[in-house]
């Protein structure tokens, strides 16, 4: 260093500047590096989705699971149940035309509980006014991105069982 130049700032003064303006200043170079850091986070997030889904696949029902008797659910009524080995809530719906459906009771938007509305013959998510078709589970209106996951209902006399839906 020669006498005509100002002395260089020490490292500690660069890292912890006295002036607030200097401390809060983010250079474009730092911003670019931060963008790259977030990009790495996105890659890790996508890896987490893939690994979690591969190592811990969603619980599948083995065979048929007894739910209740047909007499317990009147026409237009519902019955909440869970299957052994899982804490996911399901609802069994006795539709107005006498048919049966079983859906997961968690909205596909933000997992709020959904309710069957027998007058409209639709399933409602009251959190964000999402509506599902009670016959198919498809989204009719609102923010839910996917249909409601469903189970197959099997009637054996007066007993109602549910099973994993058959894949085509």
């Amino acid at each position: 260093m020669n006498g005509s130049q100002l002395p260089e700032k020490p490292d500690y003064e660069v890292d912890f500047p006295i002036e607030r303006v200097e401390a809060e200043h983010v250079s474009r170079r730092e911003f670019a590096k931060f963008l790259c850091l977030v990009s790495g986070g996105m890659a890790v997030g996508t890896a987490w989705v893939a690994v979690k889904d591969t190592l811990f696949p969603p619980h599948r029902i083995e065979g048929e699971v007894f739910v209740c008797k047909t007499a317990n659910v009147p026409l237009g009524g519902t019955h909440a149940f869970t299957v052994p080995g899982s804490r996911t809530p399901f609802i069994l719906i006795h539709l107005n035309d006498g048919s049966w459906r079983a859906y997961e009771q968690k909205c596909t938007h933000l997992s709020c509980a959904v309710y069957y509305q027998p007058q409209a013959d639709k399933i409602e998510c009251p959190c964000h006014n999402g509506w599902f078709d009670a016959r198919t589970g498809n989204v009719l209106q609102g923010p839910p991105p996917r249909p409601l996951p469903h189970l197959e209902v099997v009637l054996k006399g007066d007993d109602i069982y549910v099973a994993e839906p058959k894949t085509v």
Partner: protein
Amino acid sequence: MSSFRKAQRQAHPAKTNTLLLGVICVLILILTMQIWLLTASLNQSLEGDNAVKWPAFIASALLFSSGAALLRYLPDPIRRAKKATRAEMRRRDP
């Protein structure tokens, strides 16, 4: 070392500026694509479709690698570049 770089810097003073802006724009574009990949793979995974998750991860990792490689082309701060030029000139002509 010739004074070619120094002359270039003087002739096009906004070059560093343009380069930095370009790198930041490309990084934002990469990030946008990665957000889309993450939401798409999460959505498909929750729907039970397993075909998307690994290709989405590979694409996201490639995008991240290209973004990280792009950081190499961030221009040096002008202050540091000037300092290096001065040091070089002093070394050649003490």
